[in-house]
C-alpha cells in the first residue's frame, strides 16, 4: 500500500445504526484487519480528522449532531457512508423516524454497501475515499 500519500485520520459517528457496521468499523482497527498499518487512526476529535465515517441512517435527533461534526472538520474532508442504512436507509427506510441516507444531510463521497458492511469492503471504501481526498487537496491547493 505504498501508494498512500497521506495517513488519514478518521472520525466515526454512529447515526441510528444497528451496531453491526459499527463494530465492523472497530474490527478494522483490531489485529486481524489492523488499518493502523496504513497510518489510519480513529480519533475522537473532529478537528483532527480528514475522513468522517458514518454508519447508520439519519434520524430526527441526530441531524444537528452530524451537521455539527461535519462543520467542525477542516477542509478538505471526505464523508464515507458505511452500510446500507447510511447509503439509503436500508430496511428502516420506511420507519417514521428515519430520514433516509446520510446524503440527505451532508454530501457523501463514498458509499459502501453491505449489511453489515464487511471489514474488507470498509478498507476498500476508505482507500477509495483517499483518492477523493487527494483530488480535493489538489483543488484546494489551487484555490489558495
Amino acid at each position, binding site marked *: 500500500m505504498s501508494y498512500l500519500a497521506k495517513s488519514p485520520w478518521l472520525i466515526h459517528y454512529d447515526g441510528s445504526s444497528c451496531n453491526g457496521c459499527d463494530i465492523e468499523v472497530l474490527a478494522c482497527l483490531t489485529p486481524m484487519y489492523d488499518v493502523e498499518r496504513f497510518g489510519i487512526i480513529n480519533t475522537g476529535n473532529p478537528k483532527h480528522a480528514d475522513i468522517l465515517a458514518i454508519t447508520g441512517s439519519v*434520524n*430526527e*435527533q441526530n441531524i444537528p449532531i452530524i451537521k455539527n461534526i461535519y462543520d467542525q472538520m477542516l477542509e478538505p474532508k471526505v464523508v464515507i457512508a458505511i452500510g446500507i442504512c447510511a447509503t439509503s436507509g436500508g430496511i428502516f427506510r*420506511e420507519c*417514521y*423516524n428515519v*430520514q433516509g441516507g446520510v446524503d440527505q444531510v451532508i454530501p457523501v463521497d463514498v458509499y459502501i454497501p453491505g449489511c453489515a458492511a464487511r471489514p474488507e469492503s470498509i478498507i476498500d471504501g476508505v482507500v477509495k475515499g483517499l483518492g477523493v481526498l487527494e483530488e480535493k487537496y489538489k483543488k484546494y491547493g489551487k484555490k489558495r
Partner: protein
Amino acid sequence: MIMRHEDIAIKIQPEELVGKVSGLQGDGCRLVQIACSKTKENNFELVYSFEKDYKFCNLTFEVPPDAEVESISSMCFSAFLYENEIHDLFGLKIKHIAVDFQGTLYETAVKYPMSVETK
C-alpha cells in the same frame, strides 16, 4: 417453550392497578416490562408484565384515549422509563411519574408516532 399471553394474562380495571402492583411487589415480583398497544376501537391496551421464580403474570387493561393512568414508578422506580416511552410514542397521559421527561425522552419526527398514521 409455549407461553401464550392469554394463559398468563390477568384482566384488571384501570383503578385497581396501583393496588395490584403493590401486592405483587410485596410478593417479591419483579417488573419485566410495560407494553402499550392500540386496539381496534382506538383504545389503549396496557400490559404490565411481572415475574417471580420464572413465573410470569401480565396485568392487562384497556383505557380510552383521553384517560389518565396512574404511574407505578413510586413503587417500582424502573417503570419511569417505560411510562415516559409510552407517553412519547403513544400520547397516553400518565400521572405522577417519578422522573417525568415531559415528552422529551424521544424527539421523533412525528408527534405520538404510534397513534397516528405515518409515512
